[in-house]
C-alpha cells in the first residue's frame, strides 16, 4: 500500500466503514487539557462557546485559569494580549468566523504586531459546519491570518493532528492560529504520527523508484478525500504523491518544491476560498522556485449555504471525484 509507512497512519485509513470518525476540534480539547497539565502558565479564554469549541474540559479542571468572555471577540483577542504581557500563554477560542474573523484588527495589532504569545483557535472552519449556513462557515480564515506578519498558521487533518498541533503551539513563543472543524471526519493519523512546525509529510507516495505524475497538496480533513482520490487514481494507473501541508505558515518549502520537481504538476486541496488560502501559498512558493501547472480545489469565490456537510463539500466542488478530475486536468496541462 502506498500510504507512507513512516507516518504510522490509521489502520483503517481508507475503510470508511471501520474508520472511527471524530471532529478535529476534539483534538483541540485533548491537546489543551494536556498542555494545561504540563504548563501552569497556559490559560484559556472563550467567547461563549466553551462546549462546542471543546474548551470545556480545561475550564472544568482549571477554573482559575479559564476566563468566560461572553460574546465579545474583540475583547477576547486584546485581553489575551494583556495576559501574554504578564507571562501567560493564552489560548483563545471561538468560531473561526468570529475569531480571527470579527476581531482581525485586534489580532493583527494587539497580538501579532505586539508580539504577544497568544494562540488563536478557530473552530467550525469550512462549509462542513453544515446546517448553520454561510454566516458561520469560515472560508476566508487562512487568507486573513497568513497575511499577518509574526503569525503562524496550521490546519490539522484529524483529531490526533489537532491534538499534536495544539501541544506544539503551546511550546513555541509567538502568535499562532489553528483552524479546526466542527464535523466528524475520518481519523487519518495515529497518536504515533509525526508533527513538526514547518514540516509537510508525504502521506501517500508513488511506487518506489518511480516518479509521481502529479502531487496533491492538501490540508485539513479534506486530506482524507485526497487520499481516497490517490487510491482511485493509482488503481487507474496514475501515480500520485499526497502531501499533508498542515503547517501553512511557516511552510515546508523544500518538500513543496521537491514535489513540484518530481511530479511536474500540482493540485491543492483545502476547505477554503481558493484565493488567498493554502493553495495560493503553495503557488507563491512554486512561482518563485519551480513553476508547474496547478489546479486549486476549494470554494470558488462563493459563499456557503445550509446543508449536510458531505452534500455541501460535493456541491462546492471538494469531493473525491472533483479531486480526480483536477488531477486529470492538470496532467493534460503538463
Amino acid at each position, binding site marked *: 500500500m502506498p500510504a507512507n509507512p513512516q507516518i504510522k497512519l490509521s489502520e483503517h485509513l481508507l475503510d470508511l466503514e471501520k474508520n472511527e470518525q471524530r471532529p478535529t476540534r476534539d483534538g483541540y480539547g485533548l491537546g489543551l487539557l494536556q498542555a494545561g497539565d504540563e504548563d501552569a502558565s497556559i490559560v484559556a479564554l472563550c467567547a461563549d462557546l466553551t462546549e462546542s469549541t471543546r474548551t470545556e474540559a480545561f475550564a472544568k479542571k482549571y477554573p482559575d485559569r479559564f476566563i468566560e468572555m461572553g460574546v465579545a471577540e474583540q*475583547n477576547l483577542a486584546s485581553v*489575551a494580549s*494583556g495576559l501574554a504581557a504578564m507571562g501567560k500563554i493564552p489560548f483563545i477560542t471561538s468560531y473561526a468566523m468570529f475569531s480571527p474573523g470579527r476581531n482581525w484588527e485586534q489580532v493583527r495589532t494587539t497580538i501579532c504586531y*505586539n508580539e504577544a504569545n497568544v494562540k488563536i483557535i478557530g473552530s467550525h472552519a469550512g462549509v462542513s459546519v453544515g446546517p448553520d449556513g454561510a454566516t458561520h462557515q469560515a472560508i476566508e480564515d487562512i487568507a486573513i491570518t497568513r497575511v499577518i506578519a509574526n503569525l503562524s498558521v496550521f490546519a490539522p487533518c484529524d483529531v490526533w493532528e489537532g491534538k499534536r498541533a495544539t501541544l506544539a503551539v503551546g511550546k513555541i513563543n509567538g502568535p499562532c492560529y489553528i483552524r479546526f472543524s466542527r464535523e466528524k471526519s475520518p481519523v487519518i493519523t495515529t497518536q504515533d504520527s509525526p508533527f513538526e512546525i514547518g514540516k509537510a509529510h508525504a502521506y501517500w507516495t508513488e511506487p518506489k523508484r518511480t516518479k509521481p505524475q502529479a502531487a496533491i497538496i492538501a490540508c485539513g480533513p479534506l486530506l482524507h478525500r485526497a487520499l481516497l482520490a490517490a487510491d482511485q487514481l493509482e488503481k487507474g494507473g496514475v501515480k500520485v504523491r499526497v502531501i499533508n501541508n498542515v503547517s501553512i505558515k511557516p511552510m515546508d518549502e523544500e518538500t513543496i518544491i521537491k514535489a513540484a520537481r518530481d511530479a511536474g504538476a500540482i493540485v491543492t486541496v483545502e476547505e477554503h476560498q481558493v484565493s488567498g488560502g493554502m493553495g495560493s501559498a503553495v503557488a507563491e512558493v512554486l512561482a518563485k522556485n519551480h513553476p508547474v501547472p496547478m489546479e486549486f480545489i476549494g470554494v470558488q469565490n462563493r459563499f456557503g449555504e445550509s446543508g449536510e456537510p458531505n452534500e455541501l463539500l460535493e456541491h462546492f466542488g471538494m469531493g473525491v471525484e472533483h479531486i480526480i478530475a483536477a488531477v486529470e486536468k492538470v496532467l493534460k496541462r503538463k
Partner: protein
Amino acid sequence: MPHLHEDKIKFLEEMANTIRQDIIQMVVKAESGHVGGPMGMADIFTALYFHILKHDPKKPDWADRDRVVLSNGHICPVLYAAMARAGYFPVEELQTLRQFGSRLQGHPHRTALPGLETTSGPLGSGLSQAVGMAIGARMDGSTLLTTSAKKNINVYGFMSDGEQDCGQIWEAAMLAGKLKLDNLTCLIDRNNIQIDGLTENIMPLEPLREKYEAFNWHVLEINGHNFVEIVNAYEEAQAIFEKPVLIIAHTIPGKGVDFMEFQYQWHSKTFKPEEVTDALNQLRTLGGKIASEHQ
C-alpha cells in the same frame, strides 16, 4: 505613594511645563503628530511618572512594576517626553519622533522601546489589554475571581473620550466589572474633542459617569490640571476594593498655550514658525497660570 508636599507640587509644575515644551519641540521637528491631547495630558503624565508609579526607569522589565497602558496611542508625545524626563532614555532622543529608524514610532510600539507596555494606536483596544494585565497580575497574586488583599501590581490604563465610541471599550468595561478588577485604574482624558469636532456633537458620551457606574466601576471625577486632585484620585483608587476604578479627568486640550486651548483643530496640526515661538514663549513665561490651579 509618598505624601504630596508643597515642594513636590512645585517640582511637578515645573516638570509638566518642561514636558509641554518637549511636546511642542518634538512635533515641530517631526513636522507631524498630535499635540492638543498630549498638552492636555501633560500634568497627569507628570504626576504619573514622577509621583504615582511604582517603577524603575533603569529596570524597565522589573517584574513587580506597575503597568501603564496607553490606549489612545496618538498622544504618545506626552508619554515619550515623560519617560525621557523620568530617565528611561536620553532626552535628546525625543527629537527623533516619527523618523525612520526611531524607537519613538508615530504610535507606540512595545518592542521598539523598553518601558512601553504595549503597542497602541487603533482606538478602543487598550482597555482590553489593561484588563488582561490586571487579570494576569491577579492570577499570580491569588486566585481569579477573588479580590486581591494587597495590590502588588497596579495596572494604569489611559483612554481618550473619543474612543469611548468604540464597542470594544464596553466589552472590556463589562469584563472588568464582572471580575471586580480592583487592581485596575483607568483614566479618561475628558477633553471633549475628537477629530471631527466636539464629542457631544459627534457621538454624545454623557452621562459618561453613570455609564461606567452601571458597568460596576467606581468612578471619580477630577480637574486634570490639578496635581492635588490627580494624586488624591490615585490614592483613593488604592483604597477601593471589589471594583475597577475610573477617573474622568477633565482636561483642556492644548493646555498652556492660549491659541491652542480648547481648539479641536489642534488635535493634529502642524505649527507655523511664529506659532512655535509664541507657544514656547507662553510656556516659558507661564509662571502662575497653570500653577494657580493647584491652590
